[in-house]
Each structure stands twice: as structure tokens, then as C-alpha cells.
């Protein structure tokens, strides 16, 4: 055990002295921490916002919108000024004048009303997300309604009130709120993806570089290969969890400190990210730890099969492919957390980490299913650790051309017999 700890300490030191590791941790923690402080510097509380609403709207007034009404439907701009105060509404006397002003960019756009149901929209440069026509559809509809009501002696204002009575709907979620859990599930999946893909690769590189610089010759005669591989994997796990912990911790602390200055809408969204239920956190902890170890052992043993770091991608390629396919399934699974594919893949060790988090956070999963999946993952992890140690021992003593995992396993089996 002392040897194992010696390996872990040495490997951890290499992470902690790695400028890339320190820089990434500090930068990401700072970006997240400072990012969540932004509303404190630029935001404003609700009261101030209400008081200053008019002023702010005045300041934020957009360009003019022109109307030339050859059908005589829109007689004045009273309604428009009241309903759409962010625009300056102007009725012009002829179509050419309207076009000239739009072309000269003294007005944002213009509407030429041909009759009660037809108008032309005049704009200098059309934009991708221009909603002026939708707004004017409503305006023209209103004027048509108002004109009809006036003709029939109906009180327009009262009628409009009836037609536009605001409806308030309150949702009561008895099960899981997928809308709220979507954000944190998405982030947790990305955390797993990032940890495994980044650290798995680093572990593989660490193993291969010991072969390429021949340090392995001394190492295997100084310690048991089991300690070397387990030490590397454990150090990778500690370094990665620490890094993720620091980054997310910085975000959480900053959010807590600044929650009051976020607008209620944003607080709700951010709150859902940081307000992860304990069950999800426990499932995440178990599945991410064993999922990480499972993949790390795979990466370490695959790293031992090659002697040059440039051959690593060839060696770990198939496992990485499986991992990425799992990630894609998980991304699609966010839309349908109780789908058959998600259910099946939540029991496969390669994908269980993603899928069980999706199922726990957004879908339905029983405790028995969770335990069975966790046991399969743990057993696979132990098995990969044992086989990984043997492959590592075998691979580290073979230099030259990359070894094939299949051939190594065959040799190990035949040597055992």
C-alpha cells in the first residue's frame, strides 16, 4: 500500500506542477466565478427597474416606422403610440416619400396599407429576425376590429379588454420537472464527458511516455505493475475530481453570493443548475467515480500497448468511439429520458454513467435498477482493473510495433493455461 501511495503522490505532483492543469483550473474557476458576478456590476434590482422603466424606454427608443394608408384605415397614431411606445410612429402623405425616407435610413421601415387585409412592407435591408410584419399584422387586425366596432357602436376599449384578458397558468409538477432538471443534467453529462475524455487521454499518455522514455524498465523492477497502474488511475481520478470541484465550487460560491442581484427569471434558471437534488448528486457521484475508473483502466491498458505517444490515438480510438457514441445517445436521451434505448444503455458499463444520471434526473428509475446498474458498473470496473493490470504488465515490457489488445489477451490466457 505504501508503494501505491508513493505512485499516487508522484503522479499527483505531476498534475499539480503542470502549468496547463493549474491554468485551466484557475481560468475556468475565475470565468465561472466572475461571470456569475456580472449582474452585480451591470444589473439592477426590481424596484429601480420599475421606477426607471419609462426613462429607460425613452432612451431605448428605436427609429421611426412610417405608415402610408391609401385605404384610410389608420387615421392617427394614438393607439400605436400607446401600444408600441418603443417606436416613433409617423403617418406620411405619399408612398414615394415613405420609400425615400426608408432608403435614406431616416426611418427603420414603412407600411403601405392597400386595403383592410393587404399592405406592403418597405424596408431598406431585410433582416433575418425581423418581426415588424407580425407586429403590423396585429395592428391592422386591431384597426379592422376597431373600425367595425365603431361602425356598430360597440365600445372598443371594453371589447379589447374582454378579448385580451390576461390568462395566468400555474404548473404543479408532482413528479420530476424536466424543464428545471434539463440544465443541470446537461451540465453533469458534459462534466462526465470532459473528465473521461480529457483525463483518460492523459492517463494513456502518461503510461505510454514511461515506455517511450524507458523509465518503465526501472519502474517495473522497483514496484509491482498493479501499484503503478492503480496509482496512475487513482491520481488521475483525484486530480480530475479536484479540478471539477474547484471550478464548480467557484461557480456555486459566486452564485450564492450574487443570487439576489440576478433577475427572478435568471435566478430560476441558474437556481435549477445549482439546486441539484441530493438523489441526483448521489447517483452522479457513484456513477461518475466508477465510470471514470472503468474508462481510466481501459485507457491505461491501451496506453501500454503502444511505445510512442503518437500511436496512442490509434490504440484508444475504438474505446473513444464507443464513448462518443454513448455521449450522442445521452444527448438525444435528454429529449426522451424514459426511452427504450436509454433504459437498455443505462445497464451497459460503457454508457451507464450518462444514462443513469438522465434517468434519475429527468425520467423514472427504480432503486433496484439503480443498484443493479451500479453493481454491473462496479464489477466491470474491478474486472477492467484486473485485466488492465495484466495488459499493462505485458504491454510495458514490449517495445516496437503497437500491440493488439486481442493478441495480448490471447497471450495472457495461453500463458495462464
Amino acid at each position, binding site marked *: 500500500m*505504501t*508503494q501505491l501511495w*508513493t*505512485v499516487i503522490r*508522484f503522479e499527483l*505532483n*505531476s498534475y499539480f506542477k503542470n502549468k496547463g492543469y493549474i491554468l485551466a483550473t484557475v481560468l475556468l474557476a475565475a470565468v465561472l466565478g466572475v461571470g456569475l458576478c456580472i449582474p452585480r456590476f451591470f444589473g439592477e434590482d426590481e424596484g429601480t427597474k420599475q421606477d426607471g422603466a419609462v426613462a429607460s424606454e425613452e432612451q431605448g427608443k428605436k427609429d421611426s416606422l412610417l405608415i402610408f394608408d391609401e385605404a384610410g384605415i389608420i387615421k392617427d397614431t394614438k393607439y400605436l403610440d400607446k401600444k408600441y411606445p418603443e417606436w416613433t410612429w409617423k403617418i406620411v402623405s405619399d408612398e414615394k416619400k415613405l420609400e425615400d425616407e426608408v432608403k435614406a435610413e431616416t426611418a427603420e421601415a414603412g407600411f403601405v396599407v392597400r386595403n383592410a387585409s393587404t399592405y406592403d412592407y418597405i424596408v431598406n435591408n431585410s433582416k433575418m429576425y425581423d418581426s415588424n410584419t407580425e407586429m403590423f399584422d396585429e395592428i391592422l387586425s386591431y384597426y379592422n376590429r376597431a373600425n367595425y366596432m365603431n361602425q356598430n357602436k360597440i365600445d372598443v376599449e371594453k371589447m379589447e379588454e374582454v378579448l385580451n384578458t390576461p390568462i395566468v397558468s400555474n404548473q404543479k409538477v408532482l413528479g420530476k420537472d424536466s424543464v428545471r432538471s434539463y440544465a443541470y443534467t446537461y451540465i453533469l453529462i458534459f462534466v462526465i464527458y470532459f473528465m473521461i475524455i480529457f483525463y483518460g487521454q492523459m492517463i494513456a499518455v502518461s503510461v505510454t511516455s*514511461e515506455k517511450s*522514455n*524507458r*523509465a*518503465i*524498465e*526501472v*519502474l*517495473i*523492477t*522497483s*514496484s509491482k505493475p498493479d*501499484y503503478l497502474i492503480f496509482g496512475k488511475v487513482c491520481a488521475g481520478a483525484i486530480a480530475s475530481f479536484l479540478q471539477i470541484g474547484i471550478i464548480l465550487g467557484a461557480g456555486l460560491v459566486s452564485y450564492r453570493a450574487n443570487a439576489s442581484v440576478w433577475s427572478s427569471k435568471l435566478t430560476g434558471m441558474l437556481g435549477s443548475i445549482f439546486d441539484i437534488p441530493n438523489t441526483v448528486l448521489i447517483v452522479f457521484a457513484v456513477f461518475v467515480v466508477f465510470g471514470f475508473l472503468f474508462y481510466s483502466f481501459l485507457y491505461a491498458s491501451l496506453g501500454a500497448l503502444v511505445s510512442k505517444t503518437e500511436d496512442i490515438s490509434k490504440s484508444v480510438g475504438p474505446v473513444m468511439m464507443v464513448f462518443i457514441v454513448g455521449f450522442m445517445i445521452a444527448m438525444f436521451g435528454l429529449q426522451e429520458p424514459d426511452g427504450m434505448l436509454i433504459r437498455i444503455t443505462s445497464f451497459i458499463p460503457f454508457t451507464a454513467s450518462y444514462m443513469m444520471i438522465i434517468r434519475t434526473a429527468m425520467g423514472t428509475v427504480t432503486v433496484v435498477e439503480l443498484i443493479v446498474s451500479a453493481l454491473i458498473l462496479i464489477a466491470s470496473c474491478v474486472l477492467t482493473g484486473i485485466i488492465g493490470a495484466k495488459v499493462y504488465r505485458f504491454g510495458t*515490457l514490449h*517495445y516496437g510495433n503497437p500491440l493488439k489488445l486481442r493478441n495480448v489477451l490471447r*497471450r495472457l490466457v*495461453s*500463458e495462464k493455461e
Partner: protein
Amino acid sequence: MRLSVEQLHKSFGEKEVLHGISFEVQSGRALGLLGRNGAGKTTTIRILMDVFKANSGTISLDGAPFVPSKHQIGYLPEERGLYPKRTLIEQIVYLAGLRGMPRKQAKESALFWLKRLGVEEYAGKKLETLSKGNQQKVQLAQTIVCNPEIVILDEPFSGLDPVNSQILKDVIQELIEQEKIVIFSSHQMSYVEEFCDDIVIINKGEVVLKGELKEIKKEFGRDQLAFSVVGQSGEELARFCKEQFASLFAITQVKKDYIVIRMEQGVKKNQILQALLDHKLDIQRFGIYEPSLTDIFVEKAGD
């Protein structure tokens, strides 16, 4: 202490690479483990260090089964390398830690050996910043940092300049004097001759020669003489002798300026000397032939 290796057999898959290796080495006497590339030296060393398990055979220390993990073994592999991006002290202390040495003691010992080998000033520097010769010294420091009972040195002199070679020679001599078991593997026969009392030559997985170097040389030189004549090359002399003295001796080796002969049974040295003088040959050198280790190695391990 006496380390005995008995009848080691090792196969990789279908192929047997060691066919019954046996030898002995005792403390205070260095053993030269010799053989051509691929002869089985490294495999033997790895079995000795428990990296591989032998298919059969035993290794014992003073008669008791040898358990490598219970002893400090210093190994300098032929395929050398450490961590280029880590400092000298960091990696030597790490390797000492893996061999069970407490951290504080490991640091003291590492600094001692770095100083002894003349690279103390680089203790806090990364390995990659050192010259090849100095990196070699760091390798040696990691080998002996744990004060090992058994020291295995595989080609320790490769890449060293004469000054550094002398430092290394002194250290190896000290280890031998400190009654360590020293196994020395090298293709540079002059170094083996300098340090080793005993040798083992392995060829194609078999021991083809073993014993005390002095005795082996004596045995190889038995009934053999070497002589040269002024103004004659080895080949000219060999041609002349073949015609004139076939009844007295047979020529075994033709060198650039001398020949080595084996006396026929019953023939004495003086008879040969007299015969040469009778033929009015201006003898430059005449004496008992003592073969070099290279000659012995080539004869035993050559094709």
C-alpha cells in the same frame, strides 16, 4: 552471500528462450554476464528481479529460496530512461520510495550519490537539461540510492567519456569492496576483465561457458604460444610456419603481426624456439598465449 541460479527455463508462447540457465555469484566478487544481443541475458535478469516467472528452475540466496521483494536490488537497465520533465531529486526519491525507502532517508541518500557522482548541482533541475553523460550518472544514482545488496548493471559504461567512466569504475569497485553481489553485463570486454572475477557466457538461451575468468583464460591458453618475427606480417609468418613446422605445432589464430599456435602433443616450448632460431628467424616476441576475453567470447558465442 551466494546467489545461485539453477536450471532456469523460460518460454514465451511456443518459443523457449532459456534452456536451463545456471550460474552462481557471490558477494564481493563481480560476475560478468555475457552474451550476444538476444542471447537471453535480459530475460534472465528479469526473472531474477521477478518481472517474469520462470517456467522451471530455482533461484536461491545462501540456500534459501530467493524472494526479490525481500531484498534491495539496484538495477541499471540497458534500455535506460527516467522522467525527462521531472527534477533529479524528485525522481530518485520516488524510485527509492517505490523500493521501500523512507522519504527523508531517500532524499539524503539521493543527495549523497548525486554529490559522489558529481551532479549535485543539478539536483533541482529537470533531467532533460542534463548532458547524456550526466543523465547516465543519474541512472547510476537511482540504481544504488537504496544501498542495494544486489547490484545489476547492464552496459553501465555506454555513452560515458573517459573521465566519467573512471568515476563509474571507482563506484563499481567500491560496491564490490562493500561485499555486494554485483552482476555486470557488457559488450565492452575490457571493463568485464577489469571488474569481474567470474563470467558466464550465454548463447541462444544456454550457458556455453562459466567459471573463474583467470582459470578460463588459463585453460584457453593451455599449450598455446604466440610469437612474431621482425619484418614479417602475421600472414607471411603463418604461411612459412605451415610449410616448415607442421610436425611441431598447428596455427590457431593469425593476427596482424603475430600468430598463435597450439603445440602438438609431446612438443616442448624450447623445441619450438630452437626450431625457429635454426631457421634464422629474427624473433621479436615469443611467449605463452593468454587469450583476451574477446577471443574467448567470439569463440564461444560466435556463429
